[in-house]
């Protein structure tokens, strides 16, 4: 690298910041490749979708509070539950975790950015454009209405001729790209950019969980892309993959969908437990019990989760022996979760616990996940599942897991890392209040649903007859949902208010053990002027202050010290034992990720409205963008 010799090496901090600073205003906003800006943006965007999907839930509960109520028409109700599920899975849970991964992984592992910062920007733009794509259906009054997992032939051209389902199917294919690209980026970052000394057995557990998340996503997402994509081929180009009359098979769709769908539950759950495994030790003032056990559990869950998908299909009439295998795997997957659970209990048992807001959410998570896990074991028992599947019992179970056991950790994580991200403290008082309102509201909402399932209330009904004995419990559920919504609203207020007005946050307010607490709040653009040298699983507890590396004369070590930051580079290290191997140059801001994502959005819009020219123009724009990207690489790096 010739630039090195021509540039003054000893920039002061201000000059260094200026070197890394994005352009001000809109241009910088659209072209940034800083993992922290992108991570926060991911989280904020996901939460916008979270609150939209929350509102759809409240509307549905208004309709169901009483039998035969006319708040919503059946058509609108069906659109709302489809968008509620689709949004929560594809536009909130998955991307919000990717956002935390984006923000935290480079800080956790002591590097200056992600391995592919431009790809990172690209995956964000794809996600947000995919979300806008799906929600644009709202403005023409044709929201998807086939359920969040679709069901063939219900979402075939014959039974769903409108464009509604295309918004959904194309949106799934489109946003799936974001998850896959993001996962590749996480894996390479985690394997190649860890600070020297952060050997594989010293990685923070959240990093472990995102590694598992990424590998699972890479193997699972293609299946859902296929499921939705083949159906779109059937719909748009008259193929017959899923058309029974022409020799297609509708169960194939279910297999493909759930081959992604069940790992997806763990794709969401694993990072949530990773967050819990960071929060509980910090607020217990001790290292996590059984680190190896917990890391091993995460990996094991990743593998077993690919062998359980048929438990979503127990009622489809498959041969019992084949289903028994999946029933068995669905039981066995409890064990790694049980191991993690008792690791958390042991950590608190032998620690010194303080109940700050993040820890409250973690304890709330434990109490909720315990029940969600138990009902999960129950539905793995095939004969029982035949009774409760597609009933409100399953609605209860899935919300205990996906809302309680994923959303509570995410709220805890926001309260844990908000100060680091924004440089401002949140109100603890409002945080605790929000937790209690949410926790109580959650249980009033979702616990009675178990009983409704036993009383025979099926899922996805827009109304029900009186005289079935469901009215009282449904009213209770609806009231609970309002309380839960209020609880999330208190947090929203807390987050928005504190964004600018909260007290300045300490670099290390909770006395955590991981590297993000070694930098300022918020961290500088380059994260670490010099890369930290790690000699412990808990660098901030065992090696404080964490020693900083110096740049060596060889190529491999040049990026370690301050010269690396001056050079906009970060060290590459070997995957297992983190020997320095070279320098990764971090690209400047660029509009190309946005341009390519826009091209793809235009392409999918062309497919949607059956406009060949638009589609061709979109794909052409994307291809030109990709070519330009490869062409301009050197220039970007200069």
């Amino acid at each position: 690298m010739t630039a090195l010799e021509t540039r003054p090496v000893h920039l002061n901090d201000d000059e260094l910041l200026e070197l890394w600073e994005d352009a001000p205003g809109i241009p910088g906003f659209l072209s940034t490749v800083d993992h922290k800006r992108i991570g926060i943006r991911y989280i904020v965007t996901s939460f916008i979708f979270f609150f939209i999907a929350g509102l759809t839930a409240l509307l549905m509960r208004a309709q169901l509070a009483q039998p035969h109520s006319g708040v919503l028409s059946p058509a609108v109700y069906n659109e709302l539950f489809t968008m509620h599920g689709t949004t929560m899975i594809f536009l909130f849970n998955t991307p919000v975790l990717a956002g935390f991964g984006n923000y935290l992984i480079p800080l956790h592992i002591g590097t200056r950015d992600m391995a592919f910062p431009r790809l990172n920007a690209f995956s964000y733009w794809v996600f947000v454009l995919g979300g806008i794509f799906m929600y644009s259906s709202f403005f023409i009054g044709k929201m998807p209405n086939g359920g969040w997992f679709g069901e063939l032939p219900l979402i075939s051209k014959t039974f769903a001729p409108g464009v509604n389902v295309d918004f959904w199917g194309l949106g799934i294919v489109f946003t799936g790209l974001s998850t896959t690209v993001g996962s590749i980026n996480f894996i390479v970052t985690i394997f190649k950019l860890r600070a020297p000394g952060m050997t594989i057995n010293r990685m923070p557990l959240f990093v472990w969980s995102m590694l598992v998340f990424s590998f699972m996503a890479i193997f699972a997402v293609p299946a859902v892309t296929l499921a939705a994509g083949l159906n779109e081929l059937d719909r748009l180009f008259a193929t017959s993959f899923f058309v029974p009359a022409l020799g297609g098979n509708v169960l194939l769709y279910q297999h493909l969908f759930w081959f992604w769908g069940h790992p997806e539950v763990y794709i969401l759950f694993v990072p949530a437990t990773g967050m819990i495994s960071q929060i509980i030790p910090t607020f217990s003032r001790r290292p996590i019990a059984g680190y190896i056990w917990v890391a091993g559990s995460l990996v094991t869950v990743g593998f077993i989760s690919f062998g359980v998908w048929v438990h979503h299909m127990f009622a489809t009439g498959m041969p019992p022996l084949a289903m028994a295998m999946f029933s068995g795997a669905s039981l066995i997957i409890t064990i790694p979760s049980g191991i993690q659970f008792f690791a958390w209990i042991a950590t608190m048992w032998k620690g010194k616990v303080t109940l700050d807001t993040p820890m409250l959410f973690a304890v709330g998570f434990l109490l909720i996940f315990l029940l969600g896990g138990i009902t999960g074991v129950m539905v793995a028992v095939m004969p029982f599942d035949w009774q409760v599947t597609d009933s409100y019992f399953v609605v209860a179970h899935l919300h205990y897991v996906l809302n309680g056991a994923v959303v509570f950790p995410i709220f805890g994580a926001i309260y844990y890392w908000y100060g680091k991200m924004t440089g401002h403290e949140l109100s603890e008082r409002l945080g605790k209040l929000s937790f209690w309102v949410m926790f109580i509201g959650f249980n009033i909402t979702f616990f009675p649903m178990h009983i409704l399932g036993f009383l025979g209330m099926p899922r996805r009904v827009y109304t029900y007859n009186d005289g079935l004995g469901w009215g009282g419990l449904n009213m209770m559920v609806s009231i609970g949902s309002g309380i839960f919504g209020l609880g999330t609203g208190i947090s929203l207020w807390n987050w928005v208010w504190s964004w600018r007005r909260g007290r300045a946050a300490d670099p290390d307010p909770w006395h955590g053990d991981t590297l993000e607490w070694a930098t300022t709040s918020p961290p500088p653009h380059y994260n670490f002027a010099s890369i930290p040298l790690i000699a412990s699983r808990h660098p901030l507890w065992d090696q404080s202050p964490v020693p900083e590396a110096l740049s060596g004369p060889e190529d491999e070590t040049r990026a370690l010290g301050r010269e690396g930051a001056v050079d906009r580079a970060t060290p590459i290290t070997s995957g297992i034992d983190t020997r320095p191997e070279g320098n990764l140059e971090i690209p400047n801001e660029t509009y190309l990720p946005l341009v390519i994502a826009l091209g793809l959005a235009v392409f999918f819009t062309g497919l949607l409205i059956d406009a060949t020219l638009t589609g061709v123009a979109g794909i052409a724009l994307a291809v030109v963008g990709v070519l330009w990207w490869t062409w301009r690489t050197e220039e970007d790096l200069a």
Partner: protein
Amino acid sequence: MLDEHGQEARHVAAVWWLMFGLAAGVYVIVAAFIFIALLRGRRTATGKPSRFKDDTFIWIGGIGVPVVILALLAVVTVTTTRVLRNSEPGELRIDVTGKRWWWDVRYPDSGVVTANEIHVPVGRQVDVALTSGDVVHSFWAPQLAGKLDLIPGQTNHLRFKALDAGVYRGMCAEYCGLEHADMDFLVVADAPADFDRWLLRRSTGAGTTAQSDEATKGEVVFTRESCAGCHTIRGTSAQGTVGPDLSDFGSRRTIGGATVPNTPDELAKWITNSQAIKPGNIMPPISLSPSDLQAVVTYLEGLK
């Protein structure tokens, strides 16, 4: 589901009560662990040394106890599945086809066709052969048995045995479009002799002739107007197959997939504009003169 009147539902209820006992025990004990851990962790100044090693928690709570419970449940799963999926000699076959949003019911051995109301004999196993005429549905009568899907191009067999006479509500449990919520049915479990009588009456076509002048006029109107294009009434020229067979309509308890009770008033409203009762169903509003409407209602209610 727990107010069970079928042998299959009873087996599942037994599984449930076993699991409920285990679950309640596990929840209370583990939750107690969480609270004790919190209290200990809050009280101790520096982290009190515990007699237990970290690994002890994991080996006992995370591995040992779960393995025992899960092994038990695996055995229960396999044995219960074997029992539930067994056929018995002499079982009665019933063909049920799910359509949006009603149930076509046939007794192939006797040629009887009906809709939305399934009669079964108490104490005898029935083999319900399930398939779909359009999208995927799911057959669920919670008091009798678990669910089984109705899938186009595939026939699934649900076997169950009603233990007590009674009328049991059933429904579609798989989202099937606009009116999924109003796709219910009734299972009527009759004493064996009553059931035989019920079946015999229908297989001989008795009861499908008009019993009064008013009803005769109703039959004329029914076959003259658009009704006959979609509905069949055995022994008449009405042979439509789009909508439910109405040959024994007067004996049914409900209208429109158990959406409203079968009374002359409700029927008149249904015929005039069923879209007001069950929006989106395929039956169009029918405009009849008041006297024709009255005649058709009388005719249909007389078909028993």
